[in-house]
């Protein structure tokens, strides 16, 4: 009986981890949450659904043309994307298809800074960043 419940717990732990972030990333998510709470008092948690809207919606980007995150990353994050400007292929964004994704905070911050600028011509808010990270992590 004891053994069985351990196995069940173990399986749950693996499943929970599969959809979670590594410790370094979780710390960054927590920082974003603190910022989010400061800017919005009724903030509860980030939302993958809001993140999807941020990801797929088109905006006049840095180059003055309509662009979205999915212009390069496509809407299937487990597939290879393509940089619309250079034609170079982009490895999948989903951590399930590419274990390197959402693993290093330095890289995550770098790409959020660059890509919000390219698509939205501004920096993302803490809530927007968290929403997008939840979305990517859920795919």
């Amino acid at each position, binding site marked *: 009986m004891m053994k069985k419940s351990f196995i069940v717990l173990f399986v749950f732990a693996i499943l929970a981890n599969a959809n979670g972030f590594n410790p370094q990333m979780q710390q960054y998510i927590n920082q974003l949450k603190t910022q989010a709470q400061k800017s919005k008092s009724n903030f509860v948690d980030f939302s993958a659904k809001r993140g999807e809207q941020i990801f797929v919606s088109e905006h006049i980007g840095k180059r003055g043309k309509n662009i979205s995150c999915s212009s390069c990353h496509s809407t299937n994050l487990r597939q290879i994307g393509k940089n619309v400007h250079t034609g*170079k292929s982009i490895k999948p964004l989903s951590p399930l298809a590419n274990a390197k994704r959402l693993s290093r905070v330095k890289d995550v911050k770098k790409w959020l800074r*660059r*890509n919000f600028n390219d698509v939205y011509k501004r920096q993302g808010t803490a809530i927007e960043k968290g929403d997008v990270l939840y979305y990517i992590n859920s795919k």
Partner: protein
Amino acid sequence: MKYIYLVVIFISGILLASDVKPINNQLALKECGSCHFAYQPGLLPKRSWKKIISNLGNHFGTDASLDKKDEQMLLSYFIKNSSDNSNQYLSRVITRYTRADKTPMRITTGVVFRRAHDELRRSTFLRKSVGNPGNCIACHRTAKRGLYNEDYVRIPR
């Protein structure tokens, strides 16, 4: 017998010599290569790299900004290996044919690039399998090794 060995070494040396020094820097490979073919520093003079790398926040219309430390490391690598600091064949040609009063921002608009590709139509560069003239590796399959010799070219359909 000894003589034959020397000849073999000499000939393979010629065959394997690169036109520009291949990139041997992980930061450069990662940061440049995540969006486009990682052009070797020996393809432009150092004044060009200074201008390009100091303006990564607006890199041909895209935000390619790095943190200050990485930017400095990238810049010093590119300066150290720029065409005017290199003795390799193609680097020397590029240095010689780039006007001293000009700071080219693109490899593909330089005299050397244009002369070397003057038999090609623009439509060839724009076909789907190539994309644009800056996609060296589409035709120069040995480009990563710094080999741009015509013998290694295969233009995709």
